[in-house]
């Protein structure tokens, strides 16, 4: 396993055998892993605390929520922050996010169960450099993943297939 890409190698049995705590939609495994509850993906934190990583994934989803996208796409979008160089800034930003959540009466950001509550917390810090860094990075980090495109129906390049001249450039049939 590398820190550079999420993987789908763990079985549910292996996951369960490691012992973990639930955190939002992600699971924080004892050994520094963050994983999906159904073991669809897992990611080994390199420099960030697993709790920080799980919170960052939740935050990314709350900024650009697409119910059709699994967490693994958000993991890919934010994993670039999981380096020794960027970790201090991210840890500080997530600490501020948790402090804001506590100000709103929650134990921490992940403890706010409703998206509306978490979004209200984010609205309160949307002009901060940290929020804008995460949001701005997601615009390319999330939507420029070629694996995401088909989930929105976007087909990407068509030159290699000869364009759409014989493949439906004018096939609209419901007007």
């Amino acid at each position, binding site marked *: 396993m590398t820190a550079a890409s999420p993987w789908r190698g763990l079985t549910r049995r292996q996951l369960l055998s490691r012992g973990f705590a639930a955190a939002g939609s992600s699971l924080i495994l004892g050994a520094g892993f963050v994983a999906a509850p159904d073991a669809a993906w897992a990611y080994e934190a390199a420099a960030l605390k697993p709790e920080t990583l799980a919170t960052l994934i939740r935050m990314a989803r*709350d*900024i*650009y*929520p*697409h119910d*059709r996208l699994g967490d693994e796409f958000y993991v890919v979008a934010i994993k670039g922050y999981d380096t020794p160089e960027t970790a201090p800034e991210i840890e500080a930003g997530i600490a501020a996010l948790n402090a804001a959540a506590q100000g709103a009466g929650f134990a921490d950001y992940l403890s706010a169960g409703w998206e509306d509550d978490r*979004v209200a917390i984010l609205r309160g810090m*949307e002009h901060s450099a940290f929020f804008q860094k995460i*949001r701005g990075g997601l*615009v*390319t980090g*999330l*939507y*420029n993943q070629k694996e*995401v*495109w088909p989930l*929105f*129906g*976007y*087909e*990407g*390049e*068509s*030159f290699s297939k*000869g*364009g*759409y*001249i014989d*493949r*439906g*450039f*004018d*096939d*609209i049939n*419901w*007007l």
Partner: protein
Amino acid sequence: MVAKFDLTDDSVVLIIGTGAGGGVLANELAQRGVKVVALEAGGRYLPEDYINDEWESFGQLAWVDPRTTSGDWRVAKDFSGLPAWIVKAVGGTTIHWAGASLRFQEHEWKAHSTYGHVAGANLLDWPIDGAEMAPWYEKAEAKLGVTRTGDRPGLPGNNNFKVLEKGAKALGYKEVHTGRMAINSIDYDERMSCQQTGFCFQGCKWGAKWSAAYTDIPRGEATGNLEVRDRCHVLKIEHDDKGRVTGALYVDKDGNQQFQKARVVCVAGNSIESPRLLLNSASSMFPDGLANSSGQVGRNYMRHVTGSVYGVFEKPVRMWRGTTMAGIVQDEARFDPSRGFVGGYELETLSLGLPFMAAFLDPGGWGRGFTSALDGYENMAGMWIVGEDMPQETNRITLSSTVKDQHGLPAPDVHFDDHPNDVAMRSHAYKLGEAIYRAAGATRTFPTPPYPSTHNLGTNRMSANARDGVVNKHGQTHDIANLFISDGSQFTTGAAENPTLTIVALAIRQADHIAAELGRKNL
């Protein structure tokens, strides 16, 4: 066969920039037997090099040298370091342009006379008119292979056009068609026909769209009269003690400074870089910059009234398929001040891929209001507003006092405030665009703010009187006889039409003039 001229050869015409203005001028002069050196800041990219991926292509082609922004336009907030989306490459922004090729309307040459006094606007009539330009437009349309001109048929309509057409006709609009496009509908001039691939903005990999990169540039080089030096960034134009320009200092592709002597210098670096170069060329004789006795260099920056409207429908549109801009509604391009503004606007089909839609639909937007729009991406149709904006003296290119480029020269600051006429026109266009899509069945519409400017105009404007502008009716600077401006910065006013066809027509006309004047030994 490609020419090679000596740096000390002071008989050449030196052209700075190789886009719609400079690239065409270079070829047209070379065809007339004039020796030309063209300096291009960017590299050479041909259809096989173009990348059909929005961000990768942007990284390959876009001019991303340091620039700053100021003013109340939304681009300054959303894209503070990227005021313009234009190309740094041989062929310039003709690689990126969408191909829409419309002539000015007759009255648009005479905006001041037609519109009268507009408070805060620095309106002026062009010193030329539609009758003067008609033969040059005809040559430009033939060069570009513009559809629906000559005997060239129109392009077929794609899904995005069909939605626009349905809504526009439901509202009673009459001038609705697939545009006059410099994209081949049939094989023409050794270029194949459009394969409906999309990605017109990323460079046409089929070569179906006209671009100077693979037409005028190689044809000019084939004459043996044109040498194009790529990756050569001009720092300064120099002059002698008689006030005539003598050539240009530039950084070559190896990072070394060179000086190319010239008999005539033509500046075609677009409406941001051209005035910047004149300002950066200030000397003791010309302390305010070259050709700037009027004080108008850099002023009257125009970028068209733009904006987009996207609509989401119940069923798929797949707007990205096919020619990006082959669809237009022209009815609102007319002059009709009863709408609450002077000038007019065109509505043209437009699509962005998912990556750019995420970046441009509502810059800075987030949350479900934003993401639910993108969830409808497959069912989206899109159109672009392009209308005449008001020239204002205070909208201008200046030299930054704090930011420098990679060569140590002051970066350009692009200042733009919307004129009230611009705001009224955009508001009108948003409402109509949304009405068009609702008439076609849209369940949700988005009035999307302007992108970084692709139409950059007016900063060295043409004027009958030297006090009102920078160049005369041939693009020759009022102050310096052997210094010409050859790009869209010549525009006195912007009109409602996409500017490339007019830039090309002016360049062909200017080539004719320069060649004749050289022949008469007047230059």
